[in-house]
């Protein structure tokens, strides 16, 4: 009935990580991994091509149910099945059966690396953690890194080479390629084009340079739908050279964001969040928190965190920036008028900036035009922030040219028959290139198009050849972080479906010979890692970073002839017309994650929508256009038109509609196909981020959206406690007293005693940015199933830790509060007294445990749980059929069956392992030895977990804070999970006015 993982997998030496050998802790080449054969066979032989999948529609359920019921029925009265143990053939040192191992590597997004440690169970990569030594991780990760492990096991990944849709072989492709290359060699590669995503990989860049050396007339284009063009153009405008900009947010007292979402997007998301939270003050009320001003068109994680959010249309940000610049004495021409509300905002903002010269920062968003970025640079220089909180370095991206321009050229050459061989590596241009470039149509005109990708997607369909690419956990490569720090990304498993890496393909293009990516990467680094290459290489693999590879700071000077002030003010868009804003989808990003069920079902931080995108509009606009949630509207831009359901979003700029990219995929896979609408259909290359003169018409239909939170106000209940710094300083003591009294009210029962360990958790609401990383990390760690849109719509989502989002104040300019809610592990747990079979019980360490195999599913516990953190398997949600998905599961956690209740366990499997190790050593578990999945992933370290009986533990110290309070403490549930009240730092001048 339950299975950690089928016994076949259990004992089996399915171990792609090869025997580590004499050469130290890590392994090196694919040839070494003989054992991997076993696993590949295992998967391919049993691989159910069209088996039941994550995207649960009704019919699929029917199938599942029949199986699981049969299973259940038999399970109730059957002999135990005969299972097998399958030992290794060759003993291999370092690998202990049943014990997980961790390998350092890196995930990339938009080309930029986030260092990670990947957990491998018997050779199966199952969980991703951050790499503490990596600058853009510092031990934390984000939802994308967490979810990337699911992609590895996705049964929808492309598994074979195809030619015009027919299955073919690598050999045939090689032969065809040879012929073409021979022809190209004659004309110096004229007509050869390479189209890649943004590349920071030094090895790949070097390979491509080699290629270009070999074929001088060939060209290389990079394109990402969400790229850094504006940033690089901005530095070109301001400094006359291409630079990468880094922000030291931990040093900034005043942070001004001009439509910049540095917490949720950007190439240093995780690091920025960490630095920002440091500046936010460690909730002790001693260090004064930083102050965040954020102007945004469509609300973002950053604007939600702001002490002073300002909802302005993307087009008006420039005006705003100019006003701010002028206020700071930066020549920026004569800015247009702005609303009074904005005036006070900017006035206060300017004063704060002036008062904090060298300790403030102005950040322009990636979606803002270069001009705004230039202004930001000017202001940062004027404020002496440059060099202090803002530093510059050479661009991390190889050949950082304007991607849109580059793409335009490619298209132009396609028209002029200048392209006869196009190799597309990664990306999905047919889907994600702005509609006006009509990439698909042009592509069909090219005689030979080969495409390498993880999925056989829209682009593959339009190409002659599709080549299955390796997942980043399957191949050797390298990548740079936002600050240039390079990481060797090592595989944990041999390619499941015989894919090849970009390095291998390029090696092929350059030399016409097969060369393993392992050799390619090593050959690149051999001359660069100093004299003792092997040891340097080993430590690089072990640490997950290459020491000293960070790009040094650059001293920069503003261009002398800055033609900024004489630039005419932007044509003020008339108030009647609407603005269309394109945003990256918080989960799907540019669409590359569309087939990842974890991300699809992850509630979007602000809208709490799942499985769909929507047209977000402000409450005022909704009133004016008499629109309600789920009303379908026609969005008309020029002569392009799409239909989208409305979602009313507080704090959204008025007279603007924002839609997220990444949906409306047609060949994403069984999870992502046909969900939402395709925003790229409206997107044009000259207005990639926002466009004016949007026409909106009511379609008169409704489209059902699945949200996980229907009520957004706290109804006067003290759910999230908020105080400004001043308020807090006034009555901190009082608050502490209240909270203490509330949680220790009298009771007829004797107090709960735990003499051994007493596990407890605190969640700091001041630093929680609501990014959802905890939710998805928990999902990955605890085998939490995905239930699908229909079930979410019925309120049956399974997430063990949810992030509640509340609004406070005026709907057009509310304050946003996030509150992660896991199980509170109450000492007087209401769920326990009502369970008739003792499936919900306390253990001696104060954990409120749910015993799945004892649970009969009365659901009384959920009714009695005031926090509603219990989740019920109304159907057989866990996929018991797709073998590759079984391989992803955490063998330390039971896979739940239909009809049982489940909930947060404080990652009891981690506690148990910690306890066993400590017990064997005859000591207590050390503080910080047991770290829950949510705590580990949290970019802002808002979650603290530990032993309350350990006087030295961090959690005990944090709970001593006067900010500490128990959610619904008045019910005397005496929760072990408590919160630190949210402390904001608004500018008194603004709040007064």
């Amino acid at each position: 009935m339950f299975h950690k993982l089928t016994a076949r997998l259990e004992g089996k030496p399915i171990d792609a990580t090869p025997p580590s050998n004499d050469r130290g802790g890590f392994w090196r080449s694919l040839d070494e991994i003989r054992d991997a054969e076993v696993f590949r066979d295992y998967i391919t032989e049993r691989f159910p091509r069209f088996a039941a999948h994550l995207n649960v529609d009704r019919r699929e359920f029917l199938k599942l149910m029949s199986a699981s019921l049969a299973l259940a029925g038999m399970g109730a009265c059957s002999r135990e099945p005969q299972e097998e143990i399958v030992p290794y053939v060759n003993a291999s040192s370092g690998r202990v059966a049943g014990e997980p191992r961790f390998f350092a590597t890196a995930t990339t997004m938009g080309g930029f690396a986030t260092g990670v440690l990947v957990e491998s169970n018997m050779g199966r990569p199952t969980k991703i953690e951050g790499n503490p030594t990596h600058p853009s991780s510092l031990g934390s990760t984000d939802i994308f890194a967490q979810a990337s492990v699911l992609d590895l096991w996705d049964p929808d990944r492309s598994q074979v080479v195809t030619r015009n849709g027919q299955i073919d072989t690598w050999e045939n492709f090689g032969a065809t390629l040879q012929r073409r290359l021979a022809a190209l060699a004659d004309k110096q590669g004229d007509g050869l084009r390479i189209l890649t995503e943004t590349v920071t990989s030094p090895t790949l860049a070097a390979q491509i340079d080699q290629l270009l050396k070999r074929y001088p007339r060939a060209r290389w284009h990079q394109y990402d739908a969400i790229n850094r063009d504006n940033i690089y153009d901005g530095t070109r405008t301001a400094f006359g050279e291409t630079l990468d900009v880094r922000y030291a947010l931990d040093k900034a007292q005043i942070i001004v964001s001009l439509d910049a979402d540095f917490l949720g997007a950007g190439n240093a998301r995780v690091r920025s969040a960490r630095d920002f939270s440091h500046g936010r003050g460690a909730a002790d009320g001693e260090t004064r928190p930083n102050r965040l001003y954020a102007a945004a068109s469509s609300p973002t994680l950053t604007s939600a965190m702001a002490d002073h959010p300002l909802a302005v249309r993307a087009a008006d940000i420039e005006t705003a920036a100019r006003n701010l610049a002028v206020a700071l004495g930066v020549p920026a021409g004569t800015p247009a008028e702005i609303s009074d509300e904005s005036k006070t905002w900017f006035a206060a903002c300017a004063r704060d900036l002036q008062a904090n010269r060298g300790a403030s920062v102005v950040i322009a968003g990636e979606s803002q035009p270069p001009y705004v970025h230039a202004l930001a640079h000017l202001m940062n220089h004027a404020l002496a922030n440059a060099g202090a909180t803002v530093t510059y370095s050479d661009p991390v991206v190889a050949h950082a040219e304007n991607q849109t321009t580059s793409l335009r050229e490619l298209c132009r050459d396609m028209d002029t028959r200048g392209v006869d061989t196009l190799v597309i590596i990664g990306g999905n241009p047919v889907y994600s290139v702005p509609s006006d470039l009509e990439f698909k149509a042009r592509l069909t005109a090219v005689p030979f198009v080969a495409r390498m990708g993880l999925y056989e997607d829209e682009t593959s369909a339009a190409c002659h050849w599709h080549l299955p690419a390796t997942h980043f956990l399957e191949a050797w490569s390298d990548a740079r972080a936002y600050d240039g720090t390079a990481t060797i990304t090592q595989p944990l498993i041999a390619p499941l479906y015989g894919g090849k890496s970009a390095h291998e393909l390029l090696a092929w293009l350059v030399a016409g010979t097969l060369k393993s990516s392992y050799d390619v990467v090593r050959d690149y680094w051999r001359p660069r890692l100093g004299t003792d290459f092997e040891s340097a290489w080993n430590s690089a693999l072990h640490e997950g970073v290459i020491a000293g590879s960070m790009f040094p700071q650059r001293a920069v000077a503003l261009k002398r002839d800055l033609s900024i002030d004489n630039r005419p003010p932007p044509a003020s868009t008339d108030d009647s017309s609407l603005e269309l804003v394109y945003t990256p989808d918080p989960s799907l990003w540019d669409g590359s994650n569309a087939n990842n069920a974890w991300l699809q079902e992850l509630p979007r931080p602000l809208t709490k929508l799942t499985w769909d995108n929507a047209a977000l509009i402000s409450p005022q606009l909704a009133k004016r256009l008499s629109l309600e949630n789920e009303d379908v509207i026609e969005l008309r831009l020029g002569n392009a038109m799409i239909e989208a359901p409305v979602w009313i979003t507080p704090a959204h700029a008025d007279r603007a509609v924002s839609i997220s990219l990444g949906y409306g995929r047609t060949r994403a896979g069984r999870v992502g196909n046909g969900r939402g609408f395709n925003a790229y259909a409206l997107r044009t290359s000259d207005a990639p981020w926002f466009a004016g003169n949007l026409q909106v018409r009511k379609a008169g239909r409704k489209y059902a959206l699945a949200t996980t939170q229907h009520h957004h106000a706290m109804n006067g209940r003290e759910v999230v406690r908020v105080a400004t710094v001043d308020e807090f300083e006034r009555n901190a003591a009082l608050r502490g007293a209240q909270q203490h009294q509330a949680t220790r009210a009298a009771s007829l029962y004797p107090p709960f005693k735990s003499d051994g360990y007493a596990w407890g958790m605190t969640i700091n609401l001041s630093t929680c940015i609501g990014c959802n990383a905890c939710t998805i990390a928990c999902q990955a760690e605890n085998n939490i199933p995905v239930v699908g849109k229909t079930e979410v719509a019925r309120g049956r989502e399974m997430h063990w830790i949810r992030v509640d989002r509340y609004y406070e104040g005026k709907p057009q300019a509310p304050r946003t509060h996030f509150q992660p809610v896991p199980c509170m592990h109450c000492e007087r747990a209401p769920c326990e007294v009502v369970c008739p079979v003792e499936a919900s019980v306390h253990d001696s360490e104060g954990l409120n445990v749910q015993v799945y195999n004892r649970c009969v599913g009365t659901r009384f516990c959920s009714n009695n749980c005031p926090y509603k953190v219990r989740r019920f398997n109304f159907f057989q949600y866990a996929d018991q059929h797709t073998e590759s998905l079984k391989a992803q599961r955490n063998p330390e956690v039971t896979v739940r069956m239909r009809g049982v209740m489940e909930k947060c366990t404080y990652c009891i499997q981690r506690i148990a392992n910690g306890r066993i190790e400590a017990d064997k050593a005859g000591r207590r578990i050390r503080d910080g030895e047991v770290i829950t999945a949510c705590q580990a992933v949290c970019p802002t370290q808002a979650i603290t977990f530990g032993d309350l009986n350990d006087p030295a533990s961090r959690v005990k110290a944090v709970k001593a804070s006067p900010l500490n309070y128990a959610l619904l403490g008045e019910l005397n549930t005496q929760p072990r999970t408590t919160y630190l009240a949210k402390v904001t730092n608004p500018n008194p001048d603004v709040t007064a006015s």
Partner: protein
Amino acid sequence: MAQVFEPRLVLWLKLSALAVVAFFVVVILIWRISIAPHPSIGSPVEQIVPFSHKHHVSDVGLDCRYCHTTVETSAFAGMPPTDTCMTCHSQLFADARMLAPVRKSFASGQPLRWNRVHDLPDFVYFNHSIHVAKGVGCETCHGPIDRMPLTWRTATLEMQWCLDCHRAPEKYIRPRDQVFNLHWRPPGSQLILGKKLVEEYRIHTSSLTDCSICHR
């Protein structure tokens, strides 16, 4: 009108009524027994190679840990890889027919597939290393393994069997250095020794019966 039932018939009826009751009791008992998980106690499990613990332990004198290498470090006691077998069997019985599968495995790289003898439900998380560390002898659960020509189970592995020890470990635990000794007998009273060891090995009897100790 005549009586429906003659007195004799009535007596017969009463008896048959009793019979019916008895019948149901029997049926229920049979059903209950039939659904009880069958501890295959005493019945050897078929294996691809008729491996004899008796031979390897009593006759040859191998230590448990020679093959079950990870029993002290991991949840999984560990099964010997084929090359462990071949360390001896490349020389001894090098061409015995019963060892053919082993040689085949070694040559082909295809692992041997043994049938599990001790198989816990997947929602039970058992860890060998901690039990060994706390002085639970191999013999305590696996029985006189050194006298088993073919391996069989000596314990029911039912929850009440686990609880029997988790509730009163002093009844079973032994000095750490005697864990792998299959012939150890308590010098004096097991209870007195056990109590002493529970103290010494810091076994938290309070938490031993937590559901979360075995179920996650």
